[in-house]
């Protein structure tokens, strides 16, 4: 069984009444993607437009623009392929996080994706760098060609954690958006849950049971509390509170280690784990002798 060591102060279990939200089933149809495209200002000339679909998503393209909408979540990505991640070999963006945040908010407002006060908070600005050098490291260059500004969803003043619950806008050197991504499922009715909360210690115990068949050391360096929203390809019917446990597989001073992220239930009466149990070890066919 994995040895788990906690190297951080654990948060308090919340004091307010636990609340769970039903999530509305997303409407991802030809009509809804066209309406979204129109709202985003995507030119919809029937001559140039192309709609394709697979089991995961609908994709609407028009010229260099592409709008991808995921069936499971209603999440989308709207990108201008002529500008997103495209390097003109000159751009070098040097703006602060605060400036990037302001530019991103203005862009989102223009696209009709602005959030009300208290609905979202600034999460991070991440920069796309382009570098080159000779294989000896000479003539090195490094430039920033876009800044991706991520906003994190808030519900009842509680952050929404996880791969979803985010609105990201990618800005070019002029501060214009080249891509927007959103995974932000629509809230339905809320219900209070009387049974209360699990403690962070119980969440760690859940992770320990999850890893019971694994050998090694895990050092927990952060435990966060929030609502948990999944990524764009996952179906999700409830928005419920969770503990997000982050740590390192291996010792903190080890050269060989990886990050670990585990999501544990925060509600005392939640029956199904948010992180599915580990699959059984697969049997493999025996490998033939080397050909050397």
């Amino acid at each position, binding site marked *: 069984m994995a040895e788990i060591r906690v190297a951080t102060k654990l948060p308090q279990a919340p004091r307010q009444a636990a609340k769970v939200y039903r999530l509305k089933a997303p409407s991802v149809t030809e009509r809804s993607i066209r309406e979204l495209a129109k709202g985003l200002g995507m030119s919809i000339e029937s001559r140039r437009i192309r709609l394709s679909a697979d089991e995961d998503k609908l994709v609407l393209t028009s010229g260099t623009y592409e709008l991808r909408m995921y069936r499971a979540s209603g999440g989308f990505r709207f990108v201008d392929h002529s500008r997103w991640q495209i390097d003109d070999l000159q751009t070098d963006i040097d703006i602060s996080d605060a400036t990037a945040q302001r530019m991103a908010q203005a862009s989102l407002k223009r696209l009709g994706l602005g959030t009300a006060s208290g609905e979202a908070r600034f999460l991070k600005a991440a920069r796309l760098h382009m570098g*080159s050098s000779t294989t000896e490291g000479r003539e*090195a260059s490094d430039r920033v060609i876009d800044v991706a500004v991520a906003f994190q969803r808030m519900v009842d003043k509680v952050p929404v954690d996880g791969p979803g619950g985010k609105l990201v806008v990618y800005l070019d050197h002029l501060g214009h958006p080249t891509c927007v991504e959103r995974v932000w499922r629509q809230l339905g009715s809320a219900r209070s849950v009387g049974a209360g909360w699990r403690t962070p210690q119980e969440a760690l115990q859940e992770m320990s049971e999850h890893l019971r068949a694994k050998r090694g050391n895990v050092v927990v360096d952060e435990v966060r509390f929030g609502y948990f929203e999944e990524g764009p390809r996952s179906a999700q019917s409830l928005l419920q509170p969770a503990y997000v446990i982050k740590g390192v597989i291996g010792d903190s001073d080890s050269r*060989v280690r*990886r990050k670990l992220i585990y999501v544990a239930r925060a509600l005392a009466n939640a029956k199904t784990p948010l992180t599915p149990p580990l699959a059984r070890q697969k049997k493999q066919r025996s490998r033939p002798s080397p*050909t050397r």
Partner: protein
Amino acid sequence: MSIHVSVRVGVEWINNFHEGNCQQNELSYCDDQVEGFYNTMGDNDHVKVFDWGNDNAWETDFRHPDFGGDSLNWSDNVHFCMVCDHGGNADNIASFYFSAMHDACSVPTTQMRLGAKQLKWFATLGCDAVQNTDANHIAAVWGGPMQGVHIVCGYIGTSADSWWTADLGEDFADDICDGDSIAGAWVSDAYSFWTGDDSIAIAAGADQNEAIRRRDHENLDWRDSNVSQTNWLAWKYRT
């Protein structure tokens, strides 16, 4: 845009490490990540050549014959090879760790000659493809081992082993089979605001223009556009 060539694919992964010489802390989702890639590539009519996991994954599959390895029959006998295991990096040498001693428990990049035969794209999902983004470091780690391979994809520092990133390989394969550029799709799919994973893709070229062109535009259709010499590297990363 669709892809017009067929690509040979091989993957290796290790979740379970034993007590003994090759002992490491165990992982959980390496199989999901690389087999998602492998199967999605297969679903898009590319050729699934090998999928070796746990004790079937050997360091000799990556070590060049000049150093006693067998890479020309495995990692360098496919166009696209993806590996997920523990990685480490010290003194500008990246290493990949294996659970079975065959012949050793790890292989350093100094004993790899990526692209010597057929390999065009190499993705490593473990930690520390590079430790930082200093040009001298990136060039020192990968300038030598990139011997014909077009693009190497990996992480800056540590990467997450998590159920919540287990779909990475599938997503990446989906994107590149749609015609997206390989470096762009990797940096976009592997970067995560949530897990804190920072992604990097490094392209090779005989000169700066070629390396930049590959970094910015190369997709699977560039399979037969060989790198004649690796004199320059061009990379992109998000952090």
